[in-house]
């Protein structure tokens, strides 16, 4: 008898959320399932990032992030990682506003929830806008696509060539300040001369005019990210941190090298996988941000309509979308690490 009543009472207390007996882990069904969805999503992202790492490890060379991600809006010089740092801040701030929304929900403050959720939505939308800009710059500005990557290179056996090698082979030497298209740099109130700290030289075959139309006929001597020439150095086949283009000049021209039989060849483009991995992984993350924004809007409308107030469960739906939103921020921490920092 006694047990019957206790079971009955217990059922009255917690029967709302779960059809069985007690709530596992003191969590409602929805919240627990959100956690497990996030675990599975974490594995999906981990799969992608591990694929990125495995492919990167298998490549003799990989693009250096400081040079790939050095563009920013309203500035024409080199600003490595500045824009992605801004994007990270946007996401951190939107995560913080989301925590505030959940806190206001816990004390049943409807207006507070709407206010902080609206700020979160603005943050998410700003991040998406930034990502659109970044993608556009990557595709149209730097020429990285799913099937093409002008950064870094496949290394072949051969030697780097020096400027004198090229001159001996009948090429003419030019200083970057002599490049015709550099004149445009002053239109933006910014001198490219400041960027070119190391006086980059380029070479054109004899008989080819030094004009802007012949940009793609220039040869740059191979440099690494120390801004130093590799004069006559042998190829380090396994060196993962080489870049091979005229970085400071913003002319993404493959470098030149000399093969064993003395031929001077242009280097080929970098690993194709870089572009596809970048667009796929940041795209998948962006898709999460996008769907997060959509859900935030729907839930904010429901908050405004008083739906969750009636449920009287401390705005649990806001807490659940909050978990999802923080997870998106969490994934970005690792995307940021893999693509931009390492």
């Amino acid at each position, binding site marked *: 008898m006694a047990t019957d009543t206790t079971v009955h009472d217990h059922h009255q207390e917690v029967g709302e959320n779960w059809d069985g007996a007690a709530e*596992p*882990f*003191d*969590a409602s069904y929805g919240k*627990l399932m959100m*956690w*497990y969805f*996030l*675990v599975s999503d974490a*594995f999906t992202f*981990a799969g992608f990032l*591990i694929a990125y*790492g*495995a*492919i*990167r*490890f*298998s*490549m*003799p060379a990989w693009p*250096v992030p*400081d040079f790939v991600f050095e563009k920013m809006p309203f500035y024409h010089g080199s600003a*490595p*990682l500045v824009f992605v*740092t801004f994007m990270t*801040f946007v996401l*951190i701030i939107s*995560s*913080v506003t*989301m*925590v*505030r929304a959940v*806190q206001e929900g*816990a*004390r049943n403050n409807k207006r507070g929830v709407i206010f902080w959720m609206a700020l979160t939505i603005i943050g998410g939308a700003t991040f998406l806008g930034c990502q659109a800009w970044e993608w556009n710059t990557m595709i149209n500005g730097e020429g990285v696509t799913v099937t093409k990557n002008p950064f870094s290179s496949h290394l072949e*056996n051969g030697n780097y060539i020096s400027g004198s090698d090229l001159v001996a082979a009948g090429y003419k030497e030019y200083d970057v300040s002599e490049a015709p298209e550099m004149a445009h740099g002053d239109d933006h109130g910014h001198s490219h001369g400041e960027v070119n700290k190391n006086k980059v030289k380029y070479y054109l075959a004899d008989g080819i005019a030094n004009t802007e139309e012949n940009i793609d006929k220039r040869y740059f001597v191979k440099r*690494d*990210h*120390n*801004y130093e020439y590799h004069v006559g150095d042998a190829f380090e*086949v*396994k*060196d*993962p*941190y080489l870049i091979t283009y005229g970085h400071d000049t913003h002319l993404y021209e493959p470098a030149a090298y000399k093969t064993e039989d003395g031929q001077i060849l242009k280097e080929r483009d970098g690993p194709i996988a870089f572009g596809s991995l970048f667009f796929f992984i940041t795209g998948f993350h962006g898709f999460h941000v996008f769907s997060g924004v959509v859900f935030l809007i729907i839930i904010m409308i429901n908050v405004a309509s008083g739906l969750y107030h009636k449920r009287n469960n*401390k705005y649990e739906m806001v*807490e659940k979308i*909050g*978990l999802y939103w*923080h*997870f998106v*921020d*969490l994934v970005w*921490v*690792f995307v*940021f*690490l893999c693509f*931009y*920092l*390492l």
Partner: protein
Amino acid sequence: MSDLSYEDSKKLVFKGLILLGVLTIVEVAIALFANGHITESFDIGDGWMRYPYMLIMIGLSLYKAYFIIYEFMHMRYEAKGLVASVLLPTGLLVWAVVAFFNEGASYGERRNVIKERNQMETTTSPKIKKIGMVETTRELKKEDFQ
């Protein structure tokens, strides 16, 4: 949920904002400094200094992840069973990272070996390769697919 008072949790949010912001700035500053973008006289290059650099970056990122999960997602205030059932499975990823990165590195090495071998054969004697081709390849016939 949390046992903290409303005022305390508001403070914690502010603390979180500062912490995550500072950590991000520190990460980017280290990245720029280590790669010679702040002062040209210092650059860690491609040698052993890469490893402590990577460790610092991974460590800082993991701390950011810990803070987001424990404070922002309130993992600190959840039941132990929930914490274990969420975090323990993700521990498997450590092995996945180790195993697949090794696999990738080994794939790269094999590819280099194949490249080297190909070049050795063509530069020393093209005939060897030719004979090898004749001996080892034949046209596939219909019965190969049965």
